[in-house]
């Protein structure tokens, strides 16, 4: 089995269950794969391996949700998402009256959007790293939906929102991880 297949399997399983359990499950799969290789071809055994892995995902996902790990991640991400837009609204309403120029207002809007998401990405990653990733995805999806329904904004503004939103979230999360490593 290629190291890439092994690494990918491990990555999938570790997302769905505690690392020690994922190791044991992967060991079981490898042991049975070795047994099956004595009687079957590499191609058929490879098919069996991936079928086993794929059909395991729903059950493990459900078990992970029952454990509560996913619920905390989703709740943290959604709460951070709502908080980010709240912060952005406050920042924009405070900063916008300071200028009458439309383009300056747009830049202020983008910067406040990025700052709010960086702060919320930082907090979300401090609670759960997965929550920051989910937040970045939510921001990207929400920005896409927002841009698809409104065509009035200039292209540079739309592009900045699309790129800066997820990037700022991940930057906040990276800062949180880096500070944790420095302090601990």
């Amino acid at each position: 089995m290629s190291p890439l297949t092994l690494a990918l399997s491990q990555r999938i399983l570790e997302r769905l269950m505690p690392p020690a359990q994922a190791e044991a499950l992967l060991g079981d799969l490898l042991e049975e794969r070795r047994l099956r290789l004595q009687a079957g071809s590499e191609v058929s055994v490879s098919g069996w391996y991936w079928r086993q892995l794929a059909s395991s995902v729903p059950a493990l996902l459900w078990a992970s949700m029952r454990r509560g790990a996913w619920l905390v991640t989703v709740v943290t991400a959604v709460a951070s998402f709502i908080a980010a837009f709240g912060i952005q609204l406050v920042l924009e309403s405070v900063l916008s009256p300071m200028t009458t120029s439309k383009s300056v207002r747009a830049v202020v809007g983008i910067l406040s959007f990025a700052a709010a998401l960086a702060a919320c990405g930082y907090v979300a990653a401090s609670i759960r790293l997965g929550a920051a990733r989910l937040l970045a995805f939510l921001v990207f999806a929400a920005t896409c939906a927002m841009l698809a329904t409104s065509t009035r904004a200039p292209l540079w503004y739309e592009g900045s929102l699309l790129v800066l939103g997820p990037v700022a979230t991940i930057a906040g999360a990276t800062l949180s991880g880096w500070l944790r490593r420095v302090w601990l």
Partner: protein
Amino acid sequence: MFCYIEQMPRGEFLGSLEQIVMLAVVRLGSDAYGMTVRREIEERTGREISIGAVYATLERLEAKGYVSSFTGEPTAERGGRAKRHFEIEAAGHRVLNASQEALRNMSEGLSRRWKRA
């Protein structure tokens, strides 16, 4: 039967997959771990089951206190990964017996009806 059921706390019947997994663990004894449990179920029931479903069921049973697990030694054929062995606890034996008994009692005398149908 009713006396037996009354002794159990409410909701303490096992689902069909839980019963099958627990029976496999009982059959395998000290050799019960993910792969052997999965193979035992497939061989005896002819039902294809994923290793993930076996682990998820065992995790649920462990949380209820019906089975316990311990980590074995890492082995080369598993790529240096340790086995996670499972064994049935006393509470597991009790609930398994009760579930089997309840099924037996519920199906008692129905074989003639099934034949007629």
